[in-house]
């Protein structure tokens, strides 16, 4: 039941996108997001759509998975659109009480919707093709310059990868404990709010205990292997750019140039 929740799900497949260096993909996502905000005309959006569609095709991830991420933002999307439609000043085309639907509002709403949707699809495409570990590795390497400013980049990325690793474990644990308590007659569904909160105790106590135990075990295991911060640490799989990454950077640069040109020329 609870396992159906998916967060940043990785979809295993064998595609060029999966094999790209995570730094390239991070940069690519960033550039794509920038481009979505640079484009503001129909030809511009057409370019972005073609670009995105091509990526989805290359990634070999079923389209169904890519659109799954949109479900989560559906409500936000609707609210944003309504606000834009009714609260943008301009040429009124329809009126209901104090609510005025304006032409400018509709065009802004559509643009916002496209941007939001593309933003989500673009970033889910990255998480779908990159394992959480690669992602944190990529972030760590990408943010390394911040080390000079005494930002503990390694520690932060270590915490991130541990947290990411723990999410599915804790979800699984929750599922197990819930089942064990349901088998003893516990009820997690009925009752008013207060009762519901009270009924959570048999779930939360064991869950917290097990989370602390796991954290403790992990700390012990890391210590036993002489783990000590980021200074002079090498990686098991050092990131290293390949030819495909260089080619990708070229394509990204060209794409960004197109986006800027469109903006400047005003198409």
């Amino acid at each position, binding site marked *: 039941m609870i396992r159906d929740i998916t967060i940043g799900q990785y979809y295993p497949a064998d595609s060029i996108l999966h094999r790209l260096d995570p730094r390239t993909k991070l940069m690519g996502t960033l550039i794509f997001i920038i481009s979505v905000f640079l484009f503001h005309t129909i030809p511009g959006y057409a370019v972005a759509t073609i670009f995105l569609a091509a990526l989805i095709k290359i990634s070999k991830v079923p389209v169904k998975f890519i659109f799954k991420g949109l479900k989560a933002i559906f409500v936000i999307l609707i609210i944003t659109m309504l606000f834009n439609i009714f609260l943008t000043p301009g040429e009124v085309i329809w009126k209901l009480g104090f609510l005025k639907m304006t032409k400018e509002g509709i065009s802004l709403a559509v643009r916002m919707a496209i941007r939001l949707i593309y933003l989500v699809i673009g970033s889910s495409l990255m998480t779908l093709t990159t394992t959480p570990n690669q992602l944190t590795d990529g972030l760590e390497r990408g943010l390394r310059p911040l080390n000079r400013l005494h930002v503990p980049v390694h520690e932060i990325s270590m915490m991130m990868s541990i947290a990411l690793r723990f999410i599915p474990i804790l979800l699984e*644990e929750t599922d197990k404990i819930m*089942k064990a308590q349901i*088998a*003893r*007659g*516990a*009820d997690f569904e009925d009752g008013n709010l207060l009762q519901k909160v009270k009924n959570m105790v048999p779930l939360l106590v064991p869950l917290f205990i097990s989370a602390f135990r796991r954290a403790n075990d992990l700390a012990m295991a890391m210590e036993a292997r002489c783990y000590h911060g980021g200074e002079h640490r090498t990686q098991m799989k050092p990131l290293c750019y390949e030819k495909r990454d260089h080619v990708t950077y070229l394509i990204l640069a060209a794409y960004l140039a197109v986006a800027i040109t469109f903006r400047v020329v005003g198409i």
Partner: protein
Amino acid sequence: MSIELKNITYTYSPGTAYEIHALKDINLNIPDGQFIGVIGHTGSGKSTLIQHLNALIQPTSGTILYNGEDVWEEKYDRRSLRSQVGLVFQYPEHQLFESDVLSDVCFGPMNQGMSREEAEEEAKKALLQVGFKEKNFSKSPFELSGGQKKRVAIAGVLAMNPKILILDEPTAGLDPKGRDEILDQIAELHKVRGITIILVSHSMEDVAKYVERLIVVNHGEIAFDDTPRNVFTHYQELEAMGLAAPQITYIMHALKEKGLDVDPDATTVEEAGKDILRALQEAGSPLLKGGRKDD
């Protein structure tokens, strides 16, 4: 009174890249009063199977009948089913949460609607029956040893007076003495309370000694469902599944091959010991007279 599974299949995470077909077309009938062992290698689907028996998970397809009624029917009272079919999970620390042992065991009975006093009575009875010492009743469940926790967990389900008790690897992580104690107490429960017991286990030795019926699960399918004696005659097939017959089966087969007229299907050490002595006597072996010259 029985549980019947008809063409049960179960798929984890259907429709995703992580789809796993944990159970495939399982048919099973569990009548009252049996002592059943369920065995299979890691990941074969044992835990998934037993969670169907008290409607904790809904099968992807197929029907489960309890006393002839479909438990996944809209109006079926699954909470009452769960108090009749008790399930003790694989790791007991997953369910203990109260500040003392007695209250924790009371959780189940009180969910059934008993008052605190009635529940305590049931709890004490159950705790004593699983061999938990009275002087530890007021301890925190978290300061107990693994074996004690396991006992408390079993008592927590037993206190609900189930008609069927399912135990998922109750002996995992116990030393041989603790293991034998718990299994003996479970066998005792079977005798005293007359309830159906379903014991999930990895160890053929455990299972052979206690159960009257053995279900072997392999890759989500039932490979054998018979008396332990009959199942162990397939010891070569069991090996191919990553399981092993009890060691005594191997010894008996080896003896038979060397020409001693023993019954190769003896399942327990006691049985085998007697049989070897008998065979030796029949063969007039000098071994029995303490003479070794001609051996």
